[in-house]
Structure formats: C-alpha cells, structure tokens
C-alpha cells in the first residue's frame, strides 16, 4: 500500500511538472499548447533511447529537455504569426504528429510495442519499494526546483514582460519588448519542463509506448492547471495533486458499481474526468487559487530581499 502511495505521489509529481510547463506557456505567456503529449513524448523517448545506449541518466535527461525545448522553439517559431485558435489546432496536430512518428518509426521507437527496460536510478541495487521511495524523492525535488524557478521567473522583470505580452501583445511591443523572441523563448522553456515530465515518466515506469501519449493526457494537465489556477505555479502543483486524487479515487469507483466490464469502467472514469473539467471551468473559470497580481517590485537598494520573503 505504501509502495502504491509512493507511485501515486510520483505520478502526481509528473503531472505537476507538466502543469508547471503548461503554466509557463499558457498561464504566464498566454499561448495555447494542446500538444503537451507530444513534448512529453519527445522527452520520454530521447531520454529513454540515450540512456539505453549507455549515457548516464542525468545527461540523458538534460539532452531530452534540450530536445523538447528545441522542438518547442521551432514549433513556436513556425507559428508566431498565428492567432490563438489557429495555434490551438496546430499544436493539437503536432501532438498527434509526434505520436504518429513514435508509432511508425519502428527502427527507432520499436513502434506500438514500445520501449521496455529503460534504466532507472539504482534500480538493480534497490528493492522495488526502495526504488519507489527514491524515485518519489527525486520527483518531488525536481518539482520543487521547477516550482521555485517558476516563482522566481514570475516576479522577475522577464516574467512581468511575459504577462504583459499575455494581456496585450501590441502594448508589450510598443513598450519595446521583443515579443517574437520572448514568445519563442517562453514556449521553449515550458516545453523543456514538459520534456522533463516525460523523462521522469520513462525512467520511473521503465516502459513507454505511443499509446501513453494520447490527447487525454493533455486534458489531465489542463484540468490540473485550470483547477489550480492558471498563471500560478503553486496552483499548478496543487491542481496536479487534486487531479491525481480524482484519477486514483475514480479507480475505486469502478469497484463500487457492479456489472461493469473493464472497458466500461475505464470509459466511465474518463467521462468523469472530462465532466469535472467542464464543471470546474464553469464554476471557477480562474481556478481555485486564482492568480493574484504580484506586489509592486521593491526599489533596488532598499530592504527588498527581506520584504519579499514575507
């Protein structure tokens, strides 16, 4: 049971990482990205393949994040001129495109059979329970770092400029912000976090296949961020934990309702998740922990650091 809780904690952490990534792209900068699953897949596949070739896991992870960032930067560079609704369609298409590659480039990805035997840190030396505990700790640390950096980014001048861009692109451009460059950078940064989510997933489960990267994942993450509060890093993490709780909780729901086949139980769960997202958006469009406007930046030279900590 404890092992199960640790695994659930790890998955919640992975969702939190994805929600943090989406928060940079959508929450802070206001660009839509419905291709989350695609970046998640890029991170997972790159890290899995490199570490199977013998690269140490941390290096493989960094390479995977770089790959996801590169792909994200390229995609946003290609779509710079697009309005939000067009961008939504293009990014959704991108996610499906990645899945298509993963399913068909069998020489590289082993097709729909997936890649198994992905190394995990010290997996051979530890008992399964110890491994779960170690990996949960690693995930929590990664999320904590990403959360901290997101918070720093938000209150930094750069983060303020991103929000300005979200609210009014033209005004930001008039104020002299390099809008195009910042959009590409923010998208790449968010994509790197999405990629890191994939890295954690691949090394924890030791198995990845194209089926894992379905658009349903995108829904889960949007649910996390919307539930927690768009634009708010803490909200992203809290939302991910809530969503994981719903996902796991609804697993028990299947046992309560008699006479369901396996497929029907799974269908019912997904229906519950989808309905919840709609209900939450309806009741609390800005999320449970809505973004509060940050305090005015303190003048340099005053007791800024001390005051900011409060």
């Amino acid at each position, binding site marked *: 049971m404890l092992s199960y809780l640790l695994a659930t904690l790890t998955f919640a952490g992975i969702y939190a990482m994805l929600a943090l990534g989406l928060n940079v792209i959508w929450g802070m900068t206001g660009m*839509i990205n*419905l291709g989350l699953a695609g970046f998640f897949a890029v991170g997972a596949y790159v890290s899995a393949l490199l570490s199977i070739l013998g690269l140490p896991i941390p290096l493989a992870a960094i390479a995977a994040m770089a790959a996801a960032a590169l792909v994200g930067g390229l995609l946003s560079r*290609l*779509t710079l*001129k*697009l*309005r*939000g*609704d*067009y961008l*939504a*369609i*293009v990014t*959704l*298409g*991108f996610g*499906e*495109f990645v899945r*298509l590659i993963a*399913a*068909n480039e069998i020489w590289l990805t082993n097709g729909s059979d997936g890649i198994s035997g992905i190394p995990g840190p010290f997996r051979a030396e530890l008992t399964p329970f110890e491994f779960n505990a170690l990996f949960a700790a690693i995930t929590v640390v990664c999320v904590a770092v990403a959360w901290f950096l997101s918070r720093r980014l938000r209150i930094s001048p750069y983060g303020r400029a991103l929000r300005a861009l979200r609210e009014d692109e033209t005004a930001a451009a008039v104020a002299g912000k390099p809008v195009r460059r910042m959009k590409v950078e923010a998208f790449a940064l968010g994509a790197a976090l999405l990629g890191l989510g994939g890295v954690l997933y691949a090394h924890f489960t030791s198995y990845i296949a194209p089926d894992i990267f379905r*658009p*349903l994942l*995108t*829904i889960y993450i*949007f*649910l996390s961020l*919307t539930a927690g509060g768009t634009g708010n890093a803490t909200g992203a993490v809290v939302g991910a934990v809530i969503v994981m709780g719903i996902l796991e909780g609804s697993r028990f729901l299947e046992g309560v309702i008699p006479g369901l*086949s396996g*497929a*029907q139980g*799974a*269908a*019912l769960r*997904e*229906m519950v*998740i*989808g*309905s919840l*997202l*709609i209900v939450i*958006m*309806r009741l609390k*469009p800005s999320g449970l922990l809505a973004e509060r406007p940050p305090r005015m930046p303190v003048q340099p030279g005053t007791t800024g650091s001390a005051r900011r900590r409060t």
Partner: protein
Amino acid sequence: MLDLLPQLIVNGIVMGTLLAIPAIGFTAIFAVLRFPNFAVASHATIGAFAGYAANVGLGLPVEVSLVAAFLVAAVVGVLSDEIALRPLRPHGALTTAIASIALTIVLENAVRFIFGNDLRGYDLPLVRDWRIWGVRIGPQQVENLLLALALMSAVFLALRYTRIGKSMRAVADNPALAELKGIDPIMIGRLTVFFGMGLVGAGGMLLGVGTSIDPLTGFRFILPIFAAAVVGGLGSIPGAVLGAMVVGLGEELSLIVLSPSYRSAVGFLAIVIVLTFRPRGLLGERAY
C-alpha cells in the same frame, strides 16, 4: 509508380469530397460562434455509430441510415453544447475550445461505454469494383460521393436562399449588427450547432462506411478535418471545400513518396506549410 497517378487522383477527389462534409460543419460553427469546436471528433464518431445502429441494428439502407447519423449527431450536438459549452463562451474562445476537448472525451467514452472498443463494419452488399481506363472505383464509393455532393449542394442552397441561412451569414459577418436587425444570435447559434454537428455526424458515417468504425474513429479524422478547415481559412465554407480537396488529394498523392502510415500526417504538414505563407488560410476568413 506514376501509372498509379490517375487512381490516386480519383481516390483523392473522393476522399476530399467526403472530408468536406464534416469540415463544412466545423467551419460553419467557427464562423458563427467563433471558437474551434474540438467536439467534432466525438460527433463524427456518434454519427458513425448512429448510422451503424440504423444500418446493422435496424437493417436500414445506407441512405436512410445517413439521415439517422445526421439527426443523432445534430441533437447530441445541440444538447451537449447547451449544457457544456454555451455558458463558457463569455470566457473566451480558448476556454471554450479546451472545454470542447473535455466534451469530446466525455462523449467518445459514452460511445465506448455503450458499444465497447470492438471494430464494427457496416452491412453493405458486396459488389465488384468498376474499372474505367484502368482506374478502379467501387459503386459504394460513387454512392458516397453522390451523397456528399447532395449534402453540399443542400448546404449552399440553404445558406444562399433560406431565412435561416441568411441569418447565419449575417451573424457570422457581424453579430452586433445582426442582433440590431432583430436576429436572435442564441437561436442562430443553436441552429448552426444543429446543422454543423449534423454534417459532422453524416461525414463521420460516410468516412466510416469505407472502413470499419470504433470509438476513436472521429479522433482519427479530426486532423484531416481541421486541416481542411484551416487550410481553406477558418470560417469560410468554400474554403473548407477547397481545403478538403487539398488535404484529400495531398493524402493520396503522398503515397507516392510516403509510407501509408503517414497519411494522416499530411494534414498537419499541409496546415504548417499553408499557414507559413498565409496565416489565415487560402481563402482568408469572412468572420472577423
């Protein structure tokens, strides 16, 4: 490979005509309500399954089943839109778009809950393909093509000559002015969703008749459907037809250079290429 060209062009035209039907539905909803409604994926599936239930369950011929596909998808479209999406519209196009993906997941799984995951095929008479100058074409393909063309003509005539069609175009052009002229935008929105999702459902069935269907059928077709609408220019109905032809022919002609498993990637590539040069699609957009 080049001797295959006439065959691929014929297949591409058939495919493009079939794709145009759901693409028209999608783009019409966009023109009037101004958000990309991703729930078309599940409505295509619902249409395909409603048609299947009428065709296999009740033993009705394909033409009649197509009416069932249209009506069921249209009714589900209006009901689900009223419950899930309309209250969200004031919060903006992207909020509504995300909710429409969630709606797709709910509806797709409702189909899975009822019908299961199995592949199902329509009950069609087995007939030999015709051969015309070396090009093979199935009688069913021809019938689907004619049905699609009939639907398309009906849409064009309705938009041009009926009161409802004119009101829809008025709301698409300028909602404020339309309201001033006494057109109820909510009612027009409802009617647009009814006819739009009906077309998506009918299109889902026509696309499914050629192959087998399962709950993911609609999702597999959304990329080409979106691509058709976006390539043509979101919100433009002639654009959707043109875009569907580009995507349909592109998918078939890509077989010369690409493996068949990448067919559905052609839609994505078409979107990226066209939008790079024309960010609002080939025929721009009337709305806005």
